[in-house]
């Protein structure tokens, strides 16, 4: 037994994040932690690393009992961790980040060279191409995640905790990560693995612990369960199919036409979306999908080509103008780009329309309230109170609030950029249902996703991007993972 949690309770003002949770982690196993958004997974592992102190309960590591751990002491006990939020310092080099807090030094003086050499060794071991002297801020998200992993490995951790390590990764990068996990396991490292991606849970993990609303539901052997049962344990009810059916609602009317669009890292893009259609955009990270969305939404300006909406050529210079044309963008980074965390749910839902519904600059609060209530009910945002700040909601509900904000603008084209990243299975299927109802309503949807299953499950048609260009187009009947990967990574 490597790690034992005994009766852990963690309370935040008004929330019991963990309620009397006990858990054993066996030496050498890969142990999955699953549950809905807000179930308490991250909180639980933070108590193991000393990032937060539980209100009650004890933690036993290798037989040694702790009531108050610190990040330092857990590290000394051989616990390494990759947190859900990035914990890198952009301003420091890769090597310095890997050795942050444990710099190789002589007296007060650090030894940069030695750290670079050590870092290079780790990268070599796992076949990663990163320059240890590069500043972390200059790396893409995928590479940053690899640095995080290298950082945890460099501690020679006996227990490695990974909180949604694959969330920011594309399929290929995720596969590399899986290989790494298996290598580590083979070398005797114990692993706790948190993920919302069910496929990797079943692929990698020996045992699974399910949390729901801060309580442990059960711990089971992977071999004793299947997807449906696990999902039922997680959400506490039976879930109908993941990708709900939708009526065939594609009309002949072309809503958006893009001709030879260039700029912001994309080149010569041609595409058409019809009313009632879900067009999927697949590709690896860095393929230029978000960049394309930014051009359409007026975040960045184009350098050439044209965009036609409803038959009129448009050239939005600001998101504000794009919204005016009836375009909406649900951005990929919810916390950084989507939510006004300190503002209420109502405020968030109404922020894009308050100007429109104001009279003589003065807000119409009744109307704001009506709209907020309407969308809360329509897409079932789980909150007793619209005056809650959005930061107090779970990830899935935050995402719904942001979608509600866009629905309130009554758009004709909705762009979803990684709409279900870090969102639990239950909330996922609700968001899919929402996408369906949008297209059934005669709107068009452009859906960017790095989850292969998701693009294939939801799209009527898929465009594949690579290095800023469209490299392939597939109709629903031709959808095939291999083909798409081929387009995305061909040379």
């Amino acid at each position: 037994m490597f790690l034992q949690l005994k009766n852990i309770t963690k309370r935040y003002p008004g929330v019991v994040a963990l309620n009397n949770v006990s858990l054993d982690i066996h030496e050498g196993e890969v142990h999955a932690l699953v549950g809905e958004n807000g179930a308490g997974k991250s909180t639980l592992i933070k108590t193991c690393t000393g990032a937060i102190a539980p209100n009650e309960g004890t933690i036993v590591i290798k037989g040694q009992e702790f009531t108050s751990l610190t990040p330092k002491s857990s590290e000394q006990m051989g616990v390494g961790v990759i947190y859900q939020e990035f914990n890198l310092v952009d301003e420091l080099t890769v090597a310095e980040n890997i050795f942050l807090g444990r710099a190789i030094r002589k007296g007060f003086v650090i030894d940069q060279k030695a750290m670079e050499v050590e870092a290079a060794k780790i990268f070599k071991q796992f076949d990663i191409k990163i320059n240890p002297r590069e500043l972390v801020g200059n790396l893409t998200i995928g590479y940053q995640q690899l640095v995080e992993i290298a950082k945890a490995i460099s501690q020679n951790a006996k227990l490695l905790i990974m909180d949604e390590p694959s969330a920011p990764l594309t399929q290929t990068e995720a596969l590399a990560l899986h290989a790494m996990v298996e290598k580590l396991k083979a070398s005797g490292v114990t692993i706790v693995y948190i993920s919302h991606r069910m496929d990797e849970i079943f692929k990698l993990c020996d045992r699974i612990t399910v949390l729901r609303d801060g309580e442990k539901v059960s711990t089971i052997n992977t071999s004793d369960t299947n997807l449906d049962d696990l999902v039922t344990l997680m959400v506490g009810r039976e879930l109908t199919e993941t990708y709900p059916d939708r009526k065939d609602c594609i009309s002949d009317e072309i809503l958006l036409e893009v001709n030879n669009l260039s700029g912001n890292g994309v080149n010569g893009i041609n595409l058409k979306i019809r009313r009632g259609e879900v067009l999927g955009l697949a590709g690896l990270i860095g393929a230029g999908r978000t960049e394309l969305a930014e051009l359409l939404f007026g975040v960045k300006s184009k350098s050439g080509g044209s965009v036609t909406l409803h038959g009129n050529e448009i050239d939005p210079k600001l998101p504000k103008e794009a919204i005016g044309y009836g375009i909406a963008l649900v951005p990929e980074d919810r916390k950084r780009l989507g939510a006004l965390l300190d503002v209420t749910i109502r405020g968030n839902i109404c922020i894009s329309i308050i100007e429109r519904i104001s009279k003589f600059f003065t807000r119409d609060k009744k109307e704001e309230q009506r709209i907020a209530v309407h969308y809360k009910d329509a897409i079932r945002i789980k909150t007793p109170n619209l005056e809650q700040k959005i930061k107090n909601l779970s990830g899935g509900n935050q995402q719904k609030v942001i979608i509600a904000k866009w629905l309130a603008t009554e758009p004709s084209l909705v762009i979803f950029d990684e709409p279900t990243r870090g969102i639990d299975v239950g909330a996922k299927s609700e968001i899919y249902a929402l996408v369906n109802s949008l297209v059934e309503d005669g709107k068009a949807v452009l859906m960017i996703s790095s989850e292969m299953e998701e693009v294939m499950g939801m799209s009527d048609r898929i465009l594949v991007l690579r290095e800023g260009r469209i490299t392939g187009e597939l109709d629903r009947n031709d959808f095939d993972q291999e083909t798409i990967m081929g387009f995305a990574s061909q040379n």
Partner: protein
Amino acid sequence: MDNSDTLNGAGKLASKYAKQFGIYIVLLALLVFFSIASENFLVSSNLLNVARQVSMMGIAAVGFSFVLLLGGIDLSVGSVITLVNIVAAYFMVNLGMPPFLAVIIALALSAALGFSNGWIIANINMPPIIVTLAMMIIIEGIAYLISGGLPIYGFAKSFAVIGQGYVGPIPIPVIIMVVIMGLGGFILNKTYFGRYFYAVGGNEEAAKLSGIDVKRVKYLVYTLSGFFAGVAGIVILSRTNSGQVLSGKGFEFDVLTACVLGGVSVTGGVGKISNVLAGVLILGVLSNGLVLLDISQFVQMVIKGTVLMLAVALDCLQNRKES
């Protein structure tokens, strides 16, 4: 979860009230203390005095708290006051302009200076503290250049009304302050662009993607800050009846202190005008009360610094407990 949320709601509410009233409790405590300690304090003429004394700060604090809400700062407030003083005085005295016209021009100038701050901050992406510091130095230099360092005085009698007149027993500067604070509260709570201040201050990137023209919000906020500073400058000019190169010196720190005492966060996104008023009044009451008690000016400095430190510390500790 529903249950805990309600609990949460109730706890938040209580804590919200404590927070909302916290600053008023400090103010009340000061009022009670000085009323007991000095017989000259709780006299209507003295209280009106205090109100008049703080009114300039109160006027400028409205624009300043907008800037803080946006996560910025405006160190040029004091120098704008100075320049408005000098320019309005110059126009009235040296160019013989009627007061009304001189005031309009000076206010337009102050708004333009504020706009310049906003423009540079929004377009060059420079840190507000640097932009407004540089602006402060430049504006001060210009004020000295225009006036040659000499006071400019000898205005029409009518001009003195703004700063020295009364409506009934109420000094006109106090009325101006109340109107502008009301306007500030209205902008923040009732207009859509007031909401934008919070949104941009809370998360600029998200605000932009939500369809807010962030640059325009910045132009507006810094323009308002300049403009309200200009109004304060005109009141000061009329009150002192003489254009002075030092009239605004250091004013920005008094205003910053008042806003922060009033619970406006210097990191943006949090604050409300009604509490800023309390912050302004605390500073005024302290200044007045300590003089009434005959506390030496040096000790006064120590006390004021300590009150600022303690009041904000209290606020921070409370916030920390809350989250």
